[in-house]
């Protein structure tokens, strides 16, 4: 079920009524969350509900076993079982065909043409998100950072909580699981800010991202695009993917807050970053911290030699790229950011002077934009065509219309984020205004959403990951 669909509006309305009815029983609330979340997920494809349940049930059992096992080797065995099964599921559904095809191409390249049978499976929506969330719980229990959850319904609700099930934020057990174990408080401030976040999230998705999508397609779907248009198209894509994904995260946070839950901040004005490390502290925070805590640090982080640290950065970002999907463009995008983070680290360790902030910002954004170009190219052939196009500095007759549209669509986001950057707010626009001003700002946003609302909802980009 998509947030930006009438189905969801009806679903959430009914859920709120049921949620009010179960307010006196924590167990009933958790049951309701599980049933509603499974309904939310099954709306897309009920056949994958079993997979979601099995992933959750496995880590639930592993958590209890980890706590009950005294020996180090025994605990390690349980952890390996959890991580192994989770990664095997992920590999089977997401990566098997990619690696098979890549291997076949490699063998063909050296004169050994072979063909293996592929699975050709449908990719379950949000599998990377909920697998990582569930897996991190087992690792945290292993590390004794959280106690094992002994209530299956609470655990199922933690993994499948519908606001963040299919596209995050990837929550940690230490933060979200206890919220299913305690009494929640819903006060006027929470309701208002939750509602404001939902409105702002919808605005970013429907008014910004969905309206930018055809502009992006106009450049990236054609092999004849020229250098200036590819640059403009990449800027449009950078804004589209940000509006789409951060819009989803804001709706998720807002919906959860209306229910009394608190989800973590996932985006913190990433395009204001003045270096790449800062960008990754502001972009998809729940994934970047996941990669840091469960991959980069266990690999050794920055504790070893310099070359080892650079290698760790490369490996972490490569796997971060692969997390997005089994395709060459994601691998290249990950490697590009790995290279960037390694270079930035080298610069920090060896610099004798600071770059002016404007230059640093420009360099960072140039680097990030090129990364988005790699990310958006949906095939190696398209990537080559785009690079060839970059060398042609001609302008199509419609370039002024393109810039006009891009400017008009990006203006509200830039204005709001510019203001937030000055005030340090990470809430919705107008949050710090008096009630009347807030109502007017949100009213305009609601009007924009209503004007741009399409009967057929367009899916969020990150659903495919």
């Amino acid at each position, binding site marked *: 079920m998509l947030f930006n669909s009438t189905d969801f509006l009806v679903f959430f309305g009914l859920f709120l009524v049921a*949620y*009010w009815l*179960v*307010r*006196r*029983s*924590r*167990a*009933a*609330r958790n049951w309701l969350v599980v049933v509603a979340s499974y309904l939310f997920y099954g709306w897309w494809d009920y056949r994958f509900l079993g997979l979601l349940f099995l992933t959750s049930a496995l880590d639930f059992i592993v958590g209890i076993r980890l706590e009950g096992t005294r020996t180090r080797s025994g605990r390690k065995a349980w952890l390996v079982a959890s991580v192994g099964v989770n990664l095997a599921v992920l590999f089977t559904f997401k990566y098997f065909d990619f690696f098979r095809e890549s291997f076949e191409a490699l063998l063909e390249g050296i004169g050994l043409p072979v063909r293996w049978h592929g699975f050709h499976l449908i990719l379950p929506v949000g599998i990377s998100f909920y697998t990582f969330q569930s897996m991190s719980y087992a690792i945290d229990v292993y590390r004794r950072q959280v106690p094992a959850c002994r209530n299956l319904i609470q655990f199922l609700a933690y993994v499948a909580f519908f606001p963040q099930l299919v596209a995050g934020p990837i929550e940690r057990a230490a933060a979200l699981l206890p919220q299913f174990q305690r*009494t*929640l*408080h*819903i*006060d*006027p401030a929470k*309701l*208002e800010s939750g*509602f404001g976040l939902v*409105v702002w999230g919808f605005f970013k998705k429907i008014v910004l991202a969905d*309206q930018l999508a*055809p*502009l992006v*397609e*106009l450049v990236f*779907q*054609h092999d*004849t*695009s020229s250098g200036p248009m590819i640059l403009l198209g990449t800027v449009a894509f950078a804004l589209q993917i940000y509006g789409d994904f951060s819009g989803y995260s804001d709706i998720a946070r807002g919906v959860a807050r209306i*229910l*009394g839950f608190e989800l973590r901040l996932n985006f913190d004005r990433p395009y204001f970053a003045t270096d790449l490390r800062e960008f990754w502290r502001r972009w998809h925070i729940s994934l970047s911290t996941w990669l840091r805590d469960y991959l980069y640090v266990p690999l050794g982080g920055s504790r070893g030699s310099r070359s080892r640290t650079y290698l760790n950065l490369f490996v972490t970002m490569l796997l971060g790229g692969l997390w997005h999907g089994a395709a060459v463009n994601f691998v290249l995008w990950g490697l590009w950011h790995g290279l960037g983070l390694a270079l930035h680290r080298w610069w920090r360790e060896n610099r004798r002077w600071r770059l002016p902030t404007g230059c640093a910002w420009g360099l960072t954004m140039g680097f990030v934009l090129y990364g988005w170009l790699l990310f958006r190219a949906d095939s190696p052939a398209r990537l080559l065509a785009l690079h060839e196009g970059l060398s042609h500095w001609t302008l*199509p*007759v*419609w*370039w002024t*219309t*393109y810039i006009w*549209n891009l400017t*008009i*669509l990006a203006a509200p986001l830039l204005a709001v984020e510019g203001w937030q950057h000055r005030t340090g707010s990470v809430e919705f626009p107008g949050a710090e205004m008096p*009630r*009347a001003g*807030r*109502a*007017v*700002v*949100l*009213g*305009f*946003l*609601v*009007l924009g959403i*209503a*004007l*741009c*609302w*399409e*009967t057929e909802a367009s899916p969020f980009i990150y659903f495919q990951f």
Partner: protein
Amino acid sequence: MKTSHLYELDGWQTARGVLPPLLVATVLALLLQAACRLNWLPPPRARSDPDQTVLAYKRRVSRARHPARILLTGDSACMTGVDPGLLSANLPGREAVLNLGLIIGLDLATYGEVVADFIRANPSQVECVVLLVTPQKLRSEEESAEFLRLWRRLGSELDDGGEVRPPGHGFGLGEPRERLLGRVVTRPLRGTGADHYGFPRGIWDYLEAHQGAVLDWASYQPGSRPQPPDYVLAPSRETSSRRLRVLIPREVRLVVGLMPVPESLRAPEAVRKRDELLDDWNRWLEADQLLKHLPAVLPDGLFASGAHLNPEGQRRFTSQLALELRRLPPGPERTGGGDN
């Protein structure tokens, strides 16, 4: 029983938290609706997609002053198949040419109507009307009520000085959306050719610069089971054909031909069948000349689709059409239902 969650707010606080923005949005929406009713908002653009753009342009140009002495009319194969500038350059008198070709979704009478409109707006000027359609046009019933409605609406609203009204959608805000946002942000085109035209405005500009012709940039891919045209005249075409004839004054020469099809769709005895079809059709059309020397088929490489020529095909076909028009006898020479 452990309490799940506590609502630390009453009904009034809930309403105060959620309703004010919704109220503001509702008031703004009502103001926009009122502004539409009072015509305070600019009219919506009649060019939100390629078909609308083409039809709006043809409606407008057919009612405007234009020096054309030769008019082309027909379906989209005519619009994409003939370059008026090139045709004019290849004619001995370099007469100005205008391509009024429409789309297959409109009936034959509409092809005549657009010409009649032009002749009314530019009296005693047009010498020749060239009607070109695909063979499929005469066989199948492909008229779309939606296109006919749009064509009529474009006509009547232009008469009123306005432009096309969009269908309402999205919380009943369809009209404000088109009249406000549609004016500010244009949706780009999608699919083949989008990189050439960019936005519907690009098609409009191209139509204007090329006297009503456009280019189809796709490349034709023959299917695994090619379906050649069967060169059959549907009896239902009689009424609209006769209506077309009535709409074109007798003093203007009417010349009729069929557009070529790709080689991979060549039917057995294509030329003979094509000529027989033209003769049959001419019993209703009573054209002055039939263009039987135009090619019935052309190589696949000159096509963008089964019906549309690509840019190279347009160039080649336009030259051949010019040759045919040069061969025609100088004055109107009525042939009744016969051959040329």
